[in-house]
């Protein structure tokens, strides 16, 4: 069942490539149908979600490379299931949104379906090699999306993206090999490694492995100072590519921390948690400040991603700092971190799709070129305003639920850092309000004259994402009930 969810998009991609002479509209419909079918499967998966004793549901464990104890081990728990759902939802939104795409539609659709398999596969992997395979392939897939369908300077941005994140993936691989060699018997199985806790009491080895894993995941997340690949990649990528990059691919980094690093290196994590707290806070503040300085709408959103991912890093770091008595705080921070991943995926995905709609009409992302759009395109203005408010963490939206839990959970362990990070919200509020004011209020001005309001495919792709963000904001229990048991399990492992 789970394997079907993961590999259905790839199978459809193969059919798309192999079938000769498909019309573009047929390709679009097959693409949308495949994504929708996959989303339905995920919903069925969620309804049937019943974690077994091991904490995982729909677990599959097959031999793959027995000589190095690596297996095809997949399963979902409360941390991966929401991300799996986010992934399939966001890919469906991108498929609907890309109805406008006219350049090499077949290759575009096949590439996105391939990426969907890769992203889903990563979130359900319970084996380090399997995780790495998907991690690396996500980079390859996104490289071709940016290089093939990006804007003017796409080739350079794609190259930078590939080299930078590939460096991270190799650091990650070295860390994985280190974990493998430290375990007795040697294994790449995440569940087994977390049970063994192989580096307990081995100071230097643990620190080196944490360094390799930390750098690898921090590049992907990205956190300051490894974030410089992100703005050009986002700016040059096509809208759907940016939405996937920000909404799903960035989560791979933070997910790696809660799925791999914290359970397999709990002692080392506690010892060096302060480093991650500091990195998280710097990302929050620096990302917000740089976003404030941007004149380019898409770059601004890209930098708010650095800011939002910073909260996640702060939370997972603080979870390592909180003394073992504060079990409650630790588990709140981890729950908040996972909720933030989902929330950021929905909201930033919507924002990037809106940025794509903006570029489509005006041919530029420069905020100065636009003014008074609200009068001509009220629905566009409304959706952007909702997405912006959701992004800055207004109550009633998913971002509030996530950030509230992160701050409450982190305050006990890292009071100063949390207080400083709080400023990040203020700055994001300022920058979003300024952007809204600049673009939507005042005298009408737009590079190409009249500004068309959102079209049906745009609305069909963006509105559901925002509706979900509001739903999670108002009725978070259905999500938190799934996340909390898993967060409690991780928090127990880190605290032991």
């Amino acid at each position, binding site marked *: 069942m789970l394997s079907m969810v993961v590999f259905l998009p790839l199978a459809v991609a193969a059919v798309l490539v192999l079938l000769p002479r498909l019309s573009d509209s047929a390709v679009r419909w097959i693409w949308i149908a495949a994504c929708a079918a996959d989303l339905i499967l995920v919903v069925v998966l969620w309804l049937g979600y019943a974690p077994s004793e091991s904490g995982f549901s729909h677990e599959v464990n097959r031999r793959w490379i*027995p*000589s*190095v104890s690596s297996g095809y081990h997949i399963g979902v728990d409360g941390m991966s299931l929401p991300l799996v759902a986010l992934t399939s939802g966001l890919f469906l939104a991108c498929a609907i949104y890309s109805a406008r795409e006219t*350049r090499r539609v077949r290759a575009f659709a096949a590439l996105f379906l391939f990426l969907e398999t890769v992203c889903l596969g990563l979130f359900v992997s319970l084996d380090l090699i399997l995780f790495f*395979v998907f991690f690396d392939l996500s980079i*390859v897939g996104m490289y071709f999306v940016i290089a*093939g369908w990006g804007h003017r300077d796409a080739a350079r941005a794609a*190259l930078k993206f590939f080299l930078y994140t590939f460096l991270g993936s*190799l650091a990650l691989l*070295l860390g994985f090999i280190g974990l493998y060699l430290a375990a007795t018997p040697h294994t790449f199985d995440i569940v087994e490694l977390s049970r063994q806790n192989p580096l307990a009491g081995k100071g230097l080895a643990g620190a080196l492995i944490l360094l390799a894993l930390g750098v690898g995941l921090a590049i992907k997340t990205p956190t300051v100072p490894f974030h410089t690949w992100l703005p050009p990649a986002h700016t040059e990528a096509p809208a759907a590519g940016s939405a996937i990059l920000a909404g799903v691919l960035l989560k791979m980094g933070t997910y790696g921390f809660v799925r791999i690093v914290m359970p397999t290196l709990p002692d080392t994590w506690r010892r060096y948690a302060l480093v991650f707290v500091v990195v998280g806070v710097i990302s929050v503040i620096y990302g917000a400040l740089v976003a404030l300085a941007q004149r380019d709408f898409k770059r601004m959103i890209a930098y708010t991603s650095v800011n939002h991912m910073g909260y996640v890093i702060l939370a997972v770091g603080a979870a390592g700092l909180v003394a073992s008595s504060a079990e409650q705080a630790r588990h709140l921070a981890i729950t908040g971190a996972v909720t933030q991943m989902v929330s950021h995926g929905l909201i930033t995905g919507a924002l990037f799709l809106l940025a794509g709609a903006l570029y489509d009409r005006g041919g530029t992302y420069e905020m100065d070129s636009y003014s008074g759009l609200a009068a001509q395109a009220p629905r566009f203005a409304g959706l952007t305003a909702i997405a912006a408010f959701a992004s800055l963490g207004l109550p009633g939206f998913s971002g509030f639920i996530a950030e509230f839990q992160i701050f409450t959970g982190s305050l006990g362990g890292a009071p100063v850092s949390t207080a400083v990070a709080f400023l990040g919200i203020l700055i994001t509020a300022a920058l979003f309000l300024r952007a809204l004011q600049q673009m939507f209020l005042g005298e009408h001005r737009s590079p190409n004259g009249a500004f068309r309001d959102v079209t049906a495919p745009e609305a069909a792709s963006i509105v559901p994402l925002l509706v979900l963000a509001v739903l999670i904001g108002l009725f978070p229990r259905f999500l938190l009930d799934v996340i909390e048991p898993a967060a409690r399990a991780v928090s127990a492992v880190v605290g032991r």
Partner: protein
Amino acid sequence: MMDENPLALLPEILLIVAAVFGLLLGSYLPRQRQWLVRFVAAAACAGTIIATVVVWFRPDLTVFGDSYVVDVSTNATRIAVAAAVLLVLCLAPGEVAGAARESEWYVLVLLAAVGTIAMAGANDLMLLAAAFLLASIPLYALAGFGKDALGTEAALKYYLLGALLGVTMLGGVTVLFGVGGATTYADLGEGIGKAPGAAVAVGVIALMAGLLFKAGAVPAHFWVPDVAEGARPVVAAFVTTVPKIGAVVAIYRLVAGPLSSGSVDTMLLIAVVAAVTMTLGNLAAFFQDNVRRLLAYSTISQVGYLLVGVAAATGSELARPSVLLYLLGYAITNVGAFAVVCALPDAVTLDDYRGLRRGHRWLALSLVVCLLGLVGTPPTVVFAGKLTVFTAGLDAGLGWLVVLAAVNTVASLYYYLRWIAPAMRDAEMDGAAVVRPRAAITACVAAAASLGLGLLTGPLLALVR
């Protein structure tokens, strides 16, 4: 009791018989029918693979007075070499069909293949030297086969360097024989344990000179780019792939066997050679515009990664399976990349590949798979090789070398992307009009094999364990 059962060498004998028979057959056939010789050669390769598979699970044995070992390494080399030669034979028609000396071309390829396998199986310095010559001399002739200026220059350069380092190697064999008192590896290991360190060091370094030349490793790598550029592409595919297999296995055998007991730190020696080879190969590949020179330097850097596994020979039990897996993956993927070059005889520079994906979708896809495969992107088989080689290296305590190899891998991505990016661009292709269909199909087959074998890593690794 000495084991002199010739059937133990059936895979090698098949290739030799095919070479002799092919030469005779070729002299009696009209020029349009020379393809029969190619057929004979391909049949011999298939026979070699079958004969090897049949004996795969037999226990290791040494034959002919302990001079030749038939074990997993030899068997894996037999299969990798035969498979690579098969792929090269599929590429050959476009280049050599109807040429004046077509049958001789196939015969030279077969002889070099036998020499390569013999290097891998050699368990005696004398046999190693003989195998070295058998694996080298046909290649000098192949390099100059086109009889054009570039090819002749490449052949001459190749020959001179080969002759120099071959003689050096013979000197090394002599010194080691002198101080160790034996040439078979088993006795040699005991002998050099008691011998003076300086003499052993001189012998080892001189011996390695020849083997590193065959492997195309720094500092004996100068011939690689010239041959890859000067010789015909199909020859380049063969010369940069097949001899390396035998040479690396031969080095492995020496490092894991007799040289592990001496006072010379061969592990460190190989580790340093590996570090320098991968780094120099990568740096030199960075700004190459000629695709064949770029691939040549890439093959040099690949030897560097392979030698990481060799350096771990005594420190990790994963070392041998990892090297064998990497060799098999490298052979198929590298021939695949050269097959793309062979398929487009008019495309010389990276720029000529601009817009390849528009006209030749499958060829472009094969190129991407093979090049990303050489980087070590999962799920290709080179990834599995690299993963296990890195693991073996870390296990053997060569952390610095593995980190260097990882950094080099990232760097190598840059020049592979310099080739992939224009090929995948949406532009009219004007550089190359001619496409050789057979070579294109070979490229697709190699790319598919590289992916398929990657997914079958588990069983493969269990087989070479």
